[in-house]
C-alpha cells in the first residue's frame, strides 16, 4: 500500500511537473509572441501631416511655458502640463 501510494504520489508529482512545464512553454510562447515587433499602423511615409510644424507639441515653447507660469501662480493646481515631445519619428 505504501509502495503503491508512493508510486501514485510520484506519478502525481511527475504529472504536475509536466503540466507545469507545458504551462511554462505556453507562457514562453505567449511571451515570445509578445516580443514580436509591433507593426506600426501609421507607416513613416504616412506621417506627412504629423511632421508638419503646426502639429509640433513644442511649438513656441518659450511662450507656452510663460503662459503656464501665469496660470500656475494664480491657481491651486499645477503639474502634468509638460509635453513629452512629438515622438512621431517624422523629423
Amino acid at each position, binding site marked *: 500500500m505504501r509502495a503503491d501510494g508512493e508510486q501514485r504520489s510520484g506519478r502525481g508529482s511527475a504529472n504536475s511537473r509536466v503540466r507545469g512545464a507545458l504551462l511554462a512553454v505556453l507562457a514562453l510562447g505567449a511571451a515570445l509572441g509578445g516580443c514580436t*515587433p*509591433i*507593426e*506600426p*499602423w*501609421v507607416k*513613416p511615409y*504616412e*506621417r*506627412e*501631416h*504629423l511632421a*508638419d510644424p*503646426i*502639429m509640433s*507639441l*513644442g511649438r*513656441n*515653447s*518659450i*511662450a*507656452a*511655458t*510663460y*503662459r*503656464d*507660469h*501665469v*496660470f*500656475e*501662480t*494664480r*491657481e*491651486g*493646481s*499645477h*503639474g*502634468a*502640463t*509638460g*509635453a*513629452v*515631445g*512629438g*515622438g*512621431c*519619428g*517624422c*523629423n
Partner: protein
Amino acid sequence: MQLAVRPGVRARPRTRVRARRIRLLPPFARTLLALAVLAAPALGGVLPEDEADLMYHSYQGGDITVQGPSVLIRKKIGDSLSLTYNYYEDLISSASIDVKLSASPYHEIRKQNSVGADYLHGKTTYSVGYIYSKEPDYIASTTYYSLSQDMFGDLTTISLGYRRGWDQVYRDLCAAPHPTNSECPDIINDPTFHERADHWGYSFGLTQILTRNLLATLNYEIDTDQGYLANPYRQIRYQSGGGAGFTLAPQIYPDTRTSNAASVLLKYYLPWRATLTGSYRFYHDTWNVTGSTVEADYTLPVWKSWIFDGSLRYYTQTHASFFSDLFPYANYSNFMARDRELAAFDSVTVGVGATYQFEVPQVPWIHKSTANIRYDRLMINYKDYRDALLAAQYGAGNEPLYKLDANVLEVFLSIWY
C-alpha cells in the same frame, strides 16, 4: 468642513512693522517655472533644433504689473548632445488687493538662470538641468533628470522625469517709517525669519500616434512639498467687533503637501492644413484642492508666411480644506489660510496669437526666423474670496466677491540656425 482648534496658537496682533509686499509666486509654483522651456522639446530619438528666442512678456491685472525679458538658446554639440540656456526676468510692481489690505506697494526683480543638456543615444534622450531663481526674499534651486524613449516603430514615446528643489524663504521688512500705501524707502530681510522648503516631483508621459492625423499625449505627475509652504506676507482675517468688523492674523499652513495631476491631450490635423487641440487636466492634493482644466486650441496657417492661433481655456477649483475668507474667531483652526490661490473659483481665458515667418538673406546661417505675438485675456471669478477693502461699506463677510481680469502679452523673435 469642521476644523479642530489647535490649543496654544494665538493670533498675533496686526504687525507694527509692515510687511512691505505680497510675494507673487506661491512656493510650489516657483520650481516648476522653466522646466517646460528646457525639457519639453526633448524628444526620444530626436534632439531639439538649434534655436534662439528673445521674448518680452507682460502681465497686467489686479493692480499688479509683471514684465521683463526672456532669452532662450539651444545649441547642438556634435550629433548626440544639445545644450540649452534660458534667462528669465520678472520686473514686479504690485499694489494688489492683498497689498492694500495688509502691506505696502513694492517693486522688485526676480532673475532666473537655467541650463540644461540633452544627450541622445539610440532612440533614448537623457536630459539633465539646473535652475536657479533669486529675488530679495526667495532663492530657489532645482535640478531635474528625465529620459525619453521612442518605441513601437516610433509611434510611441515614453518619458520619465524626476525633479528636486530646495528653497530658501526670507521675509522682508521695512526698516524706515513710511506712510501707509506708499513704498518703503529702506527694505531689509527680517533677521528672525529664515525658512526652507523642499520639493520632489515625479512625472510620467506618453505620446502616441493614433492615426496619420491624430496625436495623443498622457501626462501624470506627483509632487510633494515639505517645509514652509505659506506666504509670509499674507494674512487671514477673523470676525471681531468694531472698525471694519475683522482682525488680521498670520496664516498657518501645513508643512507638507502632496499633489497628483493627470492630463490628456489630443491634437488633430484638419484637412485644410490646420490643427485642433483639446486637452483636459485633473488635479487633486492633500489640501483638498481639486481642479479641472479644459482647453481647446485652433491653429491656422494662412497665406505663405502667417500662422494664427486661437484658444479658449476654462479652469475651476475647489477651496483648500483650511481656507476661509473670514474665520469666525481667532485661533479657529490649527491651519488657516486666506490665499486667493486656495479659494474656490473658476476662470476663462481667451487667447489669440500670430506668427510671421521671414527671411534674413543677409545672415546665411539663419535658416528660419519668426516674429510672434500672443495676447490672452484672463478672467477669474472667485466664489468665496471677498473684497475685504469694502468691509467698511458692506460689513465683514458681506462684501462683493472679488473678480480679477488680466491682460497677458508675449512678443518674441525666434531664429533657427
